[in-house]
């Protein structure tokens, strides 16, 4: 059976190449496919096309079924063979079940009712639109040999090995250089010492320091130079002290280690998930909101491991998979049984952006009313593997933005009159946030 399928595949690819080569019409391709199928059907009846089956499976079944893992529904690898062996059910039963599972359950079929109850009464959607051929294709996909584990892919292995060895060798070279440097320094010192000993042994006079006043003494004795230097020194220290004092309480660049390594780069950058998907309260409340873990589970119920290409040199696939395990543990999700255990433990995220208690800031006012992009204040979050504070969040920084930002007053009939008056008062076409009172102390400090 397997051999015939392999032959089929070889024939198919050969044939396809020929077809492309000869630029034959698609009709001919279909015809040849049919001929091929007819040809191989003598060996294995109703053999489907696993490639087509894969796309059908991904489009229709993958929401609830995986090949090797229980999900909303059971794992489907070799489902036809397993059903035939264990339950004695043939393909016709599968046709009936897939097209109308509710009907099969109602008809009192023993196995149908058993599986329905086993999965907590989750009814399988009916797929009346799938033809016999479609279902054969899907079954052929589920019966196909699993792909070899990625470790045996020669290209990636070589690449990862060379990466790893590159990292090690770099460190080795640096270490060797450091040791060499220390040896050289020690060698020079020893040579110097020995030479001096030889010199004294041979009765040579070593040059002694001359009787002239040393340079630093002359410098200290010169009053003008001393005054200039001390003024310079005072100014410089004032500059640095001022700089030091004004950065106290400013956490720009603060990048704490979080209990779960959540990569904004993967989620918001590569996968393009909207900020407000997780931080949904930024739309409607003062606080941007840290998503509760059920929001994570919206996707991570299905995504239990990262794709191999997600791993980087710094963070391996095992590392990322481990972080998803941490999520499962915190939210109490049993991945094998596909259900919640009810044992949760809160994740102690470390807060990064934190305004002092005496300053009021409201997210919804900025996000929903003003329509400010999150990135304006939070920086390129979609590129941050580890989140950090981009903006200084100082008062000067707030005020600056309020002075520069033009307010969009269009389509706001309720305030039309007051906007007109303000425009007249300041003699401008477009009002800034500052001109609408965005600089008043009481707006943020009360």
């Amino acid at each position: 059976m397997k051999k015939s399928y392999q032959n089929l595949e070889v024939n198919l690819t050969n044939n396809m190449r020929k077809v492309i080569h000869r630029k034959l019409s698609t009709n001919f391709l279909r015809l040849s496919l049919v001929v091929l199928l007819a040809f191989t059907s003598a060996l294995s009846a109703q053999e489907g096309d696993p490639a087509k089956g894969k796309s059908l499976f991904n489009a229709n079944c993958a929401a609830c079924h995986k090949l090797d893992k229980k999900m909303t529904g059971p794992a489907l690898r070799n489902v036809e063979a397993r059903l035939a062996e264990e339950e004695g059910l043939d393909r016709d039963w599968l046709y009936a079940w897939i097209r109308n599972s509710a009907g099969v359950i109602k008809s009192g079929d023993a196995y149908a009712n058993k599986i329905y109850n086993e999965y907590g009464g989750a009814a399988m959607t009916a797929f009346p639109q799938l033809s016999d051929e479609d279902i054969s294709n899907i079954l052929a996909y589920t019966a196909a040999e699993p792909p070899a584990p990625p470790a045996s892919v020669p290209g990636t292995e070589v690449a990862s090995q060379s990466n790893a060895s590159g990292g090690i060798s770099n460190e080795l070279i640096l270490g060797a250089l450091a040791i060499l440097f220390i040896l050289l320094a020690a060698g020079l010192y020893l040579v110097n010492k020995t030479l001096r000993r030889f010199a004294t042994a041979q009765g040579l006079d070593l040059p002694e320091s001359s009787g002239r006043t040393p340079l630093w003494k002359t410098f200290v004795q010169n009053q003008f130079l001393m005054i200039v230097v001390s003024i310079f020194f005072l100014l410089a220290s004032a500059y640095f002290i001022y700089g030091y004092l004004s950065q106290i309480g400013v956490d720009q660049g603060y990048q704490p280690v979080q209990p779960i390594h959540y990569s904004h780069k993967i989620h918001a950058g590569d996968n393009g998930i909207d900020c407000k998907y997780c931080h949904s309260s930024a739309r409607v409340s003062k606080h941007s909101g840290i998503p509760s873990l059920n929001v994570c589970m919206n996707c991570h119920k299905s995504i239990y491991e990262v794709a191999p290409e997600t791993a980087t040199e710094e963070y391996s696939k095992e590392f990322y998979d481990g972080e998803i395990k941490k999520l499962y543990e915190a939210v109490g999700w049993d991945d094998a049984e596909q259900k919640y255990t009810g044992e949760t433990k809160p994740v102690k995220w470390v807060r990064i952006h934190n305004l002092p208690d005496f300053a009021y800031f409201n997210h919804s006012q900025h996000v929903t009313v003003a329509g400010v992009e999150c990135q304006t204040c939070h920086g390129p979050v979609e590129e941050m593997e580890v989140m950090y504070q981009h903006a200084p969040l100082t008062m000067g920084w707030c005020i600056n933005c309020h002075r520069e930002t033009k307010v969009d007053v269009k389509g706001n009939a309720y305030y039309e009159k007051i906007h007109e008056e303000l425009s007249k008062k300041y003699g401008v076409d477009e009002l800034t946030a500052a001109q609408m009172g965005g600089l008043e102390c009481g707006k943020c400090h009360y």
Partner: protein
Amino acid sequence: MKSLIKILAIAVILVSVSCKKDTAPNYQFMPNMYESVGYETYGEAAFPNGIEAQVPAEGSIPRGFVPFDIENSTAGYDLAKATLKSPLAPAIPLTADISEEERNANEYRVDYEKAGPLYTIYCAICHGVKGDGKGKLVQREKILGIPSYADAGRAINEGSIYHTIYYGKNAMGSYANQLNEEERWQVVAYVLKLKADLEK
């Protein structure tokens, strides 16, 4: 020998500076002005489980909140599909000949300009901008098997869409805490619009 010591000293300073990481917050001038006396959102608190975010007492409901009576089960789904109707008034086409006052009279009205962005944030990432089940996560093969809204076997309607948003279905999670009741019904209206467009 002296220069060697200097070089070493500079090297040590450079190394110590370059290894500095901002993993700890900065000093504050007067912490009692910076840190709130009251509990901060998501902060720690003197409750038995040590966290500020407490679950409300059982049976308490927010003001204006109407409990959703239909239960989270296949039977509940069927019941919602058969009986649940949207409380929002249908959208007024922009071309309709009515006064501004009439247009703004009923605020609980389907508003595709409100619903569209919500759909884009919460649904389009999997279900696709057109509702054809080809969102970005599906294209990148992170999540598979998202059905099109026009799927004949499911035949979704407003009640079943609302039930699914509220409780989730199969691999889809609940969106009840990201969207409030009105927003959910807005999204339902938008999904129906996409479904109609797909079936054209």
